[in-house]
Protein backbone atom coordinates (compact mmCIF):
# COMPACT_ATOMS: atom_id res chain seq x y z
CA UNK A 1 0.00 0.00 0.00
CA UNK A 2 2.85 2.33 0.88
CA UNK A 3 4.47 1.55 -2.47
CA UNK A 4 1.31 2.45 -4.34
CA UNK A 5 1.11 5.76 -2.50
CA UNK A 6 4.75 6.36 -3.45
CA UNK A 7 3.89 5.73 -7.09
CA UNK A 8 1.05 8.24 -6.91
CA UNK A 9 3.37 10.76 -5.26
CA UNK A 10 5.86 10.25 -8.10
CA UNK A 11 3.11 11.05 -10.57
CA UNK A 12 2.24 14.29 -8.80
CA UNK A 13 5.88 15.34 -8.37
CA UNK A 14 6.82 14.63 -11.98
CA UNK A 15 3.76 16.18 -13.59
CA UNK A 16 5.13 19.78 -13.48
CA UNK A 17 8.46 18.54 -14.89
CA UNK A 18 6.74 16.78 -17.72
CA UNK A 19 4.47 19.65 -18.64
CA UNK A 20 7.34 22.15 -18.48
CA UNK A 21 9.17 20.53 -21.41
CA UNK A 22 6.53 21.84 -23.80
CA UNK A 23 7.71 25.36 -23.03
CA UNK A 24 11.47 24.71 -23.00
CA UNK A 25 13.99 23.93 -25.73
CA UNK A 26 15.53 20.50 -26.17
CA UNK A 27 19.07 19.92 -24.95
CA UNK A 28 20.15 18.40 -28.25
CA UNK A 29 22.89 20.07 -30.26
CA UNK A 30 22.33 20.91 -33.89
CA UNK A 31 23.69 18.84 -36.76
CA UNK A 32 26.12 19.67 -38.42
CA UNK A 33 27.62 20.53 -35.10
CA UNK A 34 27.54 23.95 -33.59
CA UNK A 35 30.96 24.72 -32.04
CA UNK A 36 31.19 22.61 -28.91
CA UNK A 37 33.32 23.70 -26.00
CA UNK A 38 35.61 20.77 -25.35
CA UNK A 39 37.61 20.58 -22.16
CA UNK A 40 41.15 21.90 -22.36
CA UNK A 41 42.57 18.41 -21.87
CA UNK A 42 40.85 17.01 -24.94
CA UNK A 43 43.25 15.46 -27.47
CA UNK A 44 41.95 15.39 -31.03
CA UNK A 45 43.76 15.31 -34.36
CA UNK A 46 47.55 15.49 -34.57
CA UNK A 47 48.78 18.70 -36.20
CA UNK A 48 52.20 20.20 -36.75
CA UNK A 49 53.84 23.62 -36.85
CA UNK A 50 55.67 23.64 -40.17
CA UNK A 51 58.39 26.09 -39.11
CA UNK A 52 59.34 24.54 -35.79
CA UNK A 53 59.93 20.95 -36.88
CA UNK A 54 63.57 20.02 -37.37
CA UNK A 55 63.09 16.31 -38.01
CA UNK A 56 64.77 15.15 -34.80
CA UNK A 57 62.88 11.81 -34.73
CA UNK A 58 61.93 12.21 -31.03
CA UNK A 59 58.18 11.83 -31.60
CA UNK A 60 58.68 8.80 -33.86
CA UNK A 61 60.95 7.18 -31.30
CA UNK A 62 58.52 7.69 -28.41
CA UNK A 63 55.26 6.80 -30.20
CA UNK A 64 53.87 3.68 -28.45
CA UNK A 65 51.97 2.39 -31.49
CA UNK A 66 54.37 3.48 -34.28
CA UNK A 67 51.74 5.69 -35.81
CA UNK A 68 54.34 8.28 -36.90
CA UNK A 69 56.87 7.71 -39.61
CA UNK A 70 59.76 9.95 -40.58
CA UNK A 71 61.21 9.74 -44.07
CA UNK A 72 64.51 11.58 -43.93
CA UNK A 73 66.67 12.25 -46.95
CA UNK A 74 68.95 14.90 -45.52
CA UNK A 75 68.97 17.40 -42.67
CA UNK A 76 66.79 19.85 -44.60
CA UNK A 77 64.51 17.56 -46.57
CA UNK A 78 62.27 15.15 -44.70
CA UNK A 79 58.64 14.19 -44.42
CA UNK A 80 56.50 13.15 -41.43
CA UNK A 81 53.63 10.74 -42.01
CA UNK A 82 50.84 10.11 -39.52
CA UNK A 83 48.66 6.98 -39.50
CA UNK A 84 45.34 8.23 -38.09
CA UNK A 85 43.74 4.80 -37.80
CA UNK A 86 46.63 3.45 -35.72
CA UNK A 87 47.09 6.45 -33.44
CA UNK A 88 45.71 6.28 -29.90
CA UNK A 89 45.88 10.05 -29.37
CA UNK A 90 47.88 9.63 -26.16
CA UNK A 91 49.80 12.91 -26.60
CA UNK A 92 53.23 11.38 -26.10
CA UNK A 93 54.55 13.05 -29.30
CA UNK A 94 53.51 16.43 -27.93
CA UNK A 95 55.38 15.72 -24.69
CA UNK A 96 58.48 14.45 -26.47
CA UNK A 97 58.78 17.36 -28.86
CA UNK A 98 61.33 19.91 -27.66
CA UNK A 99 60.56 22.50 -30.34
CA UNK A 100 56.75 22.83 -29.83
CA UNK A 101 56.26 21.52 -33.34
CA UNK A 102 53.83 18.59 -33.02
CA UNK A 103 50.63 19.09 -31.04
CA UNK A 104 47.09 17.76 -30.69
CA UNK A 105 44.26 20.20 -31.37
CA UNK A 106 40.58 19.85 -30.45
CA UNK A 107 39.13 18.71 -33.76
CA UNK A 108 38.33 15.14 -34.67
CA UNK A 109 39.29 13.16 -37.77
CA UNK A 110 36.67 12.78 -40.46
CA UNK A 111 35.42 9.23 -41.03
CA UNK A 112 36.23 7.62 -44.35
CA UNK A 113 35.24 4.55 -46.35
CA UNK A 114 38.82 3.88 -47.33
CA UNK A 115 41.66 3.29 -44.91
CA UNK A 116 44.15 4.82 -47.32
CA UNK A 117 42.73 8.25 -46.50
CA UNK A 118 43.95 7.89 -42.92
CA UNK A 119 47.59 7.97 -43.97
CA UNK A 120 48.20 11.70 -43.71
CA UNK A 121 51.37 13.52 -44.69
CA UNK A 122 51.77 15.97 -41.83
CA UNK A 123 54.84 17.73 -43.11
CA UNK A 124 56.96 17.94 -46.22
CA UNK A 125 60.20 19.91 -46.11
CA UNK A 126 62.84 20.37 -48.76
CA UNK A 127 63.21 18.14 -51.79
CA UNK A 128 62.03 14.56 -51.55
Amino acid sequence: MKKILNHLRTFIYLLPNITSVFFSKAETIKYPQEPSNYSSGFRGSVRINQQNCVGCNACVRDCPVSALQLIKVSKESFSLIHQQDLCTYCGQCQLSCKFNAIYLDNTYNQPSADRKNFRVVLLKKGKL
Partner: protein
Amino acid sequence: MNITEFLFNILIFPGFLFLLALALGLDWLDRKLIARFQGRVGPPWYQPWADLLKLFAKEDILPAGTNVVFTSLLPLLSFASVMTALFYIPIAFRRVPSFQGDFIVIMFLLSVPSLLYFLAGWATKGVYSIIGGNRSLLQYFSYEVLFLLAISGTIITSNSWSIEGIRQAQFEQGAFILPQIFGFLLALSGLIGKLKRGPLDIPKANSEVIAGPLTEFSGKKLALWILTNELQTVAGLSLLIYCYFGNLWQMNKLSGFLIFSVLLVLMQCLLSAISAMYARLRIDQLIRLNWYLLIPLSLLHNLYLIIK
Protein backbone atom coordinates in the same frame (compact mmCIF):
# COMPACT_ATOMS: atom_id res chain seq x y z
CA MET B 1 -24.53 0.92 -51.08
CA ASN B 2 -22.82 0.41 -54.41
CA ILE B 3 -19.57 -1.40 -54.98
CA THR B 4 -17.27 1.65 -55.28
CA GLU B 5 -18.53 3.07 -52.02
CA PHE B 6 -18.01 -0.32 -50.41
CA LEU B 7 -14.44 -0.56 -51.69
CA PHE B 8 -13.76 3.04 -50.63
CA ASN B 9 -15.03 2.23 -47.14
CA ILE B 10 -12.92 -0.90 -46.86
CA LEU B 11 -9.69 0.40 -48.34
CA ILE B 12 -9.49 4.12 -47.79
CA PHE B 13 -11.59 6.09 -45.42
CA PRO B 14 -12.57 4.24 -42.30
CA GLY B 15 -10.75 1.25 -43.71
CA PHE B 16 -7.17 0.22 -44.12
CA LEU B 17 -5.37 3.39 -45.25
CA PHE B 18 -7.02 5.68 -42.71
CA LEU B 19 -6.32 3.22 -39.88
CA LEU B 20 -2.72 2.88 -41.02
CA ALA B 21 -2.24 6.65 -41.03
CA LEU B 22 -3.92 6.93 -37.63
CA ALA B 23 -1.85 4.14 -36.09
CA LEU B 24 1.47 5.41 -37.43
CA GLY B 25 0.56 8.97 -36.49
CA LEU B 26 -0.12 7.89 -32.92
CA ASP B 27 3.16 5.96 -32.89
CA TRP B 28 5.04 9.06 -34.03
CA LEU B 29 3.24 11.14 -31.41
CA ASP B 30 4.25 8.64 -28.74
CA ARG B 31 7.91 8.60 -29.75
CA LYS B 32 8.06 12.37 -30.12
CA LEU B 33 6.38 12.96 -26.76
CA ILE B 34 8.70 10.57 -24.93
CA ALA B 35 11.67 12.25 -26.61
CA ARG B 36 10.43 15.68 -25.52
CA PHE B 37 9.81 14.45 -21.98
CA GLN B 38 13.44 13.35 -21.88
CA GLY B 39 14.66 16.69 -23.25
CA ARG B 40 15.45 15.30 -26.71
CA VAL B 41 14.30 16.44 -30.13
CA GLY B 42 12.71 13.20 -31.27
CA PRO B 43 12.09 11.69 -34.68
CA PRO B 44 10.46 13.52 -37.61
CA TRP B 45 6.85 12.81 -38.53
CA TYR B 46 7.63 10.31 -41.29
CA GLN B 47 9.71 8.08 -39.03
CA PRO B 48 7.22 5.18 -38.51
CA TRP B 49 6.49 5.14 -42.25
CA ALA B 50 10.20 4.89 -43.07
CA ASP B 51 10.69 2.14 -40.49
CA LEU B 52 7.84 0.06 -41.85
CA LEU B 53 8.83 0.53 -45.51
CA LYS B 54 12.41 -0.41 -44.75
CA LEU B 55 11.34 -3.52 -42.85
CA PHE B 56 9.04 -4.61 -45.67
CA ALA B 57 11.95 -4.29 -48.12
CA LYS B 58 14.39 -6.25 -46.00
CA GLU B 59 15.42 -9.86 -46.29
CA ASP B 60 13.30 -12.25 -44.26
CA ILE B 61 15.28 -14.89 -42.44
CA LEU B 62 14.38 -17.35 -39.72
CA PRO B 63 16.59 -19.55 -37.54
CA ALA B 64 17.13 -23.10 -38.76
CA GLY B 65 14.65 -25.66 -37.50
CA THR B 66 11.61 -23.39 -37.24
CA ASN B 67 8.38 -24.15 -39.06
CA VAL B 68 8.28 -21.49 -41.77
CA VAL B 69 4.55 -21.73 -42.50
CA PHE B 70 3.60 -21.55 -38.83
CA THR B 71 5.87 -18.59 -38.03
CA SER B 72 4.64 -16.71 -41.12
CA LEU B 73 1.04 -17.39 -40.16
CA LEU B 74 1.40 -15.95 -36.64
CA PRO B 75 1.90 -12.23 -37.51
CA LEU B 76 -0.65 -12.49 -40.34
CA LEU B 77 -3.27 -13.95 -37.98
CA SER B 78 -2.67 -11.35 -35.29
CA PHE B 79 -2.82 -8.55 -37.87
CA ALA B 80 -6.06 -9.98 -39.28
CA SER B 81 -7.66 -10.33 -35.86
CA VAL B 82 -6.86 -6.73 -34.90
CA MET B 83 -8.21 -5.49 -38.24
CA THR B 84 -11.40 -7.50 -37.69
CA ALA B 85 -11.76 -6.03 -34.22
CA LEU B 86 -11.36 -2.56 -35.71
CA PHE B 87 -14.21 -3.37 -38.09
CA TYR B 88 -16.56 -3.60 -35.09
CA ILE B 89 -15.16 -0.63 -33.15
CA PRO B 90 -16.63 2.70 -34.21
CA ILE B 91 -13.57 4.72 -35.20
CA ALA B 92 -14.37 8.41 -35.65
CA PHE B 93 -18.08 8.72 -36.54
CA ARG B 94 -18.44 5.49 -38.49
CA ARG B 95 -21.55 3.36 -37.95
CA VAL B 96 -20.74 -0.25 -37.27
CA PRO B 97 -22.74 -3.46 -37.70
CA SER B 98 -23.72 -4.04 -34.11
CA PHE B 99 -25.32 -7.10 -32.56
CA GLN B 100 -25.97 -8.29 -29.03
CA GLY B 101 -22.67 -9.62 -27.65
CA ASP B 102 -20.27 -7.96 -30.08
CA PHE B 103 -18.40 -6.57 -27.08
CA ILE B 104 -17.24 -10.10 -26.25
CA VAL B 105 -16.17 -10.60 -29.87
CA ILE B 106 -14.07 -7.43 -29.76
CA MET B 107 -12.45 -8.42 -26.47
CA PHE B 108 -11.64 -11.86 -27.85
CA LEU B 109 -10.23 -10.51 -31.13
CA LEU B 110 -8.09 -8.00 -29.24
CA SER B 111 -6.65 -10.72 -27.02
CA VAL B 112 -5.76 -13.05 -29.90
CA PRO B 113 -2.48 -11.18 -30.67
CA SER B 114 -1.30 -11.67 -27.08
CA LEU B 115 -1.72 -15.43 -27.35
CA LEU B 116 -0.07 -15.49 -30.77
CA TYR B 117 2.73 -13.41 -29.28
CA PHE B 118 3.41 -16.22 -26.83
CA LEU B 119 3.28 -18.78 -29.66
CA ALA B 120 5.72 -16.66 -31.66
CA GLY B 121 8.22 -16.88 -28.84
CA TRP B 122 7.66 -20.61 -28.59
CA ALA B 123 7.92 -21.27 -32.33
CA THR B 124 11.18 -19.43 -33.02
CA LYS B 125 13.08 -21.45 -30.40
CA GLY B 126 15.37 -18.71 -29.17
CA VAL B 127 16.19 -18.58 -25.46
CA TYR B 128 15.08 -14.97 -25.14
CA SER B 129 12.01 -15.65 -27.26
CA ILE B 130 10.82 -18.40 -24.95
CA ILE B 131 11.43 -16.31 -21.81
CA GLY B 132 9.60 -13.39 -23.40
CA GLY B 133 6.75 -15.63 -24.50
CA ASN B 134 6.29 -17.04 -21.01
CA ARG B 135 6.35 -13.54 -19.58
CA SER B 136 3.73 -12.35 -22.08
CA LEU B 137 1.44 -15.23 -21.08
CA LEU B 138 1.88 -14.45 -17.37
CA GLN B 139 1.15 -10.80 -18.05
CA TYR B 140 -1.87 -11.79 -20.14
CA PHE B 141 -3.42 -13.58 -17.16
CA SER B 142 -3.17 -10.47 -15.03
CA TYR B 143 -4.08 -7.51 -17.24
CA GLU B 144 -6.76 -9.17 -19.36
CA VAL B 145 -8.92 -9.91 -16.32
CA LEU B 146 -8.42 -6.38 -15.04
CA PHE B 147 -9.27 -4.78 -18.38
CA LEU B 148 -12.42 -6.84 -18.86
CA LEU B 149 -13.62 -6.34 -15.26
CA ALA B 150 -12.97 -2.60 -15.32
CA ILE B 151 -14.62 -1.98 -18.66
CA SER B 152 -17.61 -4.19 -17.76
CA GLY B 153 -18.70 -1.37 -15.45
CA THR B 154 -20.10 0.32 -18.53
CA ILE B 155 -21.90 -2.90 -19.50
CA ILE B 156 -23.49 -3.15 -16.05
CA THR B 157 -24.70 0.44 -16.15
CA SER B 158 -26.01 0.33 -19.70
CA ASN B 159 -27.44 -3.18 -19.26
CA SER B 160 -26.36 -4.23 -22.71
CA TRP B 161 -23.63 -6.42 -24.23
CA SER B 162 -23.40 -4.51 -27.48
CA ILE B 163 -21.44 -1.44 -28.55
CA GLU B 164 -24.64 0.19 -29.86
CA GLY B 165 -26.41 -0.45 -26.53
CA ILE B 166 -23.61 1.26 -24.57
CA ARG B 167 -23.89 4.21 -26.96
CA GLN B 168 -27.67 4.44 -26.52
CA ALA B 169 -27.35 4.26 -22.73
CA GLN B 170 -24.87 7.13 -22.75
CA PHE B 171 -27.28 9.23 -24.82
CA GLU B 172 -29.84 8.79 -22.05
CA GLN B 173 -27.66 8.92 -18.90
CA GLY B 174 -24.77 11.14 -20.05
CA ALA B 175 -21.15 10.11 -20.55
CA PHE B 176 -19.84 7.40 -18.25
CA ILE B 177 -16.52 9.17 -17.69
CA LEU B 178 -17.66 11.25 -14.72
CA PRO B 179 -19.61 8.67 -12.68
CA GLN B 180 -17.11 5.92 -13.55
CA ILE B 181 -13.78 7.77 -13.55
CA PHE B 182 -12.40 5.09 -11.26
CA GLY B 183 -13.30 2.32 -13.67
CA PHE B 184 -11.82 4.34 -16.52
CA LEU B 185 -8.46 4.61 -14.76
CA LEU B 186 -8.46 0.89 -13.97
CA ALA B 187 -9.28 0.06 -17.60
CA LEU B 188 -6.48 2.37 -18.74
CA SER B 189 -3.98 0.55 -16.56
CA GLY B 190 -5.24 -2.74 -17.98
CA LEU B 191 -4.83 -1.32 -21.47
CA ILE B 192 -1.20 -0.40 -20.79
CA GLY B 193 -0.52 -4.04 -20.01
CA LYS B 194 -2.45 -5.13 -23.07
CA LEU B 195 -0.43 -2.91 -25.38
CA LYS B 196 2.85 -4.01 -23.72
CA ARG B 197 4.01 -0.46 -23.30
CA GLY B 198 4.94 2.01 -20.63
CA PRO B 199 6.00 0.50 -17.33
CA LEU B 200 4.49 -2.86 -18.29
CA ASP B 201 6.64 -3.71 -21.33
CA ILE B 202 7.81 -6.81 -19.49
CA PRO B 203 7.57 -9.35 -22.37
CA LYS B 204 9.72 -7.29 -24.72
CA ALA B 205 11.93 -5.63 -22.11
CA ASN B 206 14.76 -4.34 -24.22
CA SER B 207 17.57 -4.57 -21.69
CA GLU B 208 16.51 -7.90 -20.18
CA VAL B 209 15.21 -10.26 -22.85
CA ILE B 210 16.53 -8.48 -26.01
CA ALA B 211 13.22 -8.11 -27.85
CA GLY B 212 11.14 -10.83 -26.25
CA PRO B 213 9.28 -13.12 -28.65
CA LEU B 214 10.22 -10.88 -31.59
CA THR B 215 13.95 -11.54 -31.15
CA GLU B 216 14.21 -13.93 -34.09
CA PHE B 217 11.79 -12.13 -36.41
CA SER B 218 13.03 -9.91 -39.20
CA GLY B 219 11.81 -8.17 -42.32
CA LYS B 220 8.14 -8.40 -43.24
CA LYS B 221 7.12 -10.46 -40.21
CA LEU B 222 8.62 -7.95 -37.79
CA ALA B 223 6.92 -5.12 -39.69
CA LEU B 224 3.58 -6.90 -39.35
CA TRP B 225 4.12 -7.40 -35.61
CA ILE B 226 4.95 -3.71 -35.14
CA LEU B 227 1.95 -2.70 -37.22
CA THR B 228 -0.29 -5.02 -35.18
CA ASN B 229 0.85 -3.41 -31.96
CA GLU B 230 0.19 0.08 -33.31
CA LEU B 231 -3.26 -0.87 -34.61
CA GLN B 232 -3.97 -2.43 -31.21
CA THR B 233 -3.23 0.94 -29.63
CA VAL B 234 -5.81 2.56 -31.90
CA ALA B 235 -8.35 -0.17 -31.19
CA GLY B 236 -7.90 -0.09 -27.42
CA LEU B 237 -7.97 3.69 -27.16
CA SER B 238 -11.03 4.02 -29.38
CA LEU B 239 -12.81 1.30 -27.41
CA LEU B 240 -12.12 3.25 -24.20
CA ILE B 241 -13.24 6.52 -25.80
CA TYR B 242 -16.40 4.87 -27.07
CA CYS B 243 -17.26 3.25 -23.75
CA TYR B 244 -16.63 6.31 -21.59
CA PHE B 245 -17.26 9.33 -23.85
CA GLY B 246 -19.96 7.72 -26.01
CA ASN B 247 -22.47 10.55 -26.03
CA LEU B 248 -20.02 13.18 -27.24
CA TRP B 249 -20.59 12.64 -30.94
CA GLN B 250 -24.32 12.88 -31.20
CA MET B 251 -23.70 16.10 -33.12
CA ASN B 252 -22.80 16.23 -36.80
CA LYS B 253 -20.01 14.19 -38.38
CA LEU B 254 -17.26 16.83 -38.44
CA SER B 255 -17.47 17.84 -34.78
CA GLY B 256 -17.67 14.19 -33.81
CA PHE B 257 -14.50 13.48 -35.73
CA LEU B 258 -12.75 16.47 -34.12
CA ILE B 259 -13.78 15.42 -30.61
CA PHE B 260 -12.66 11.86 -31.31
CA SER B 261 -9.21 12.95 -32.52
CA VAL B 262 -8.71 15.37 -29.62
CA LEU B 263 -9.61 12.63 -27.13
CA LEU B 264 -7.32 10.15 -28.90
CA VAL B 265 -4.37 12.57 -28.76
CA LEU B 266 -5.05 13.37 -25.09
CA MET B 267 -5.15 9.70 -24.11
CA GLN B 268 -1.98 9.03 -26.09
CA CYS B 269 -0.33 11.92 -24.19
CA LEU B 270 -1.39 10.29 -20.92
CA LEU B 271 0.01 6.91 -21.95
CA SER B 272 3.30 8.48 -23.07
CA ALA B 273 3.60 10.45 -19.85
CA ILE B 274 3.05 7.31 -17.79
CA SER B 275 5.64 5.34 -19.75
CA ALA B 276 8.13 8.20 -19.48
CA MET B 277 7.62 8.57 -15.73
CA TYR B 278 7.73 5.04 -14.40
CA ALA B 279 10.43 2.40 -14.53
CA ARG B 280 9.58 -1.10 -15.70
CA LEU B 281 7.96 -3.40 -13.13
CA ARG B 282 9.17 -6.92 -12.50
CA ILE B 283 6.79 -9.68 -13.57
CA ASP B 284 6.07 -10.74 -9.97
CA GLN B 285 5.47 -7.10 -8.97
CA LEU B 286 2.99 -6.75 -11.81
CA ILE B 287 1.06 -9.87 -10.86
CA ARG B 288 1.02 -8.93 -7.18
CA LEU B 289 -0.18 -5.42 -8.01
CA ASN B 290 -2.90 -6.67 -10.32
CA TRP B 291 -4.27 -9.60 -8.32
CA TYR B 292 -3.90 -8.12 -4.82
CA LEU B 293 -4.95 -4.56 -5.51
CA LEU B 294 -6.35 -3.60 -8.90
CA ILE B 295 -8.62 -6.59 -9.60
CA PRO B 296 -10.25 -6.50 -6.11
CA LEU B 297 -10.72 -2.76 -6.59
CA SER B 298 -12.42 -3.26 -9.94
CA LEU B 299 -14.62 -5.98 -8.42
CA LEU B 300 -15.63 -3.60 -5.64
CA HIS B 301 -16.32 -0.92 -8.23
CA ASN B 302 -18.57 -3.28 -10.16
CA LEU B 303 -20.34 -4.32 -6.94
CA TYR B 304 -21.00 -0.65 -6.16
CA LEU B 305 -22.43 -0.13 -9.64
CA ILE B 306 -24.72 -3.16 -9.28
CA ILE B 307 -26.04 -2.08 -5.87
CA LYS B 308 -26.59 1.47 -7.04
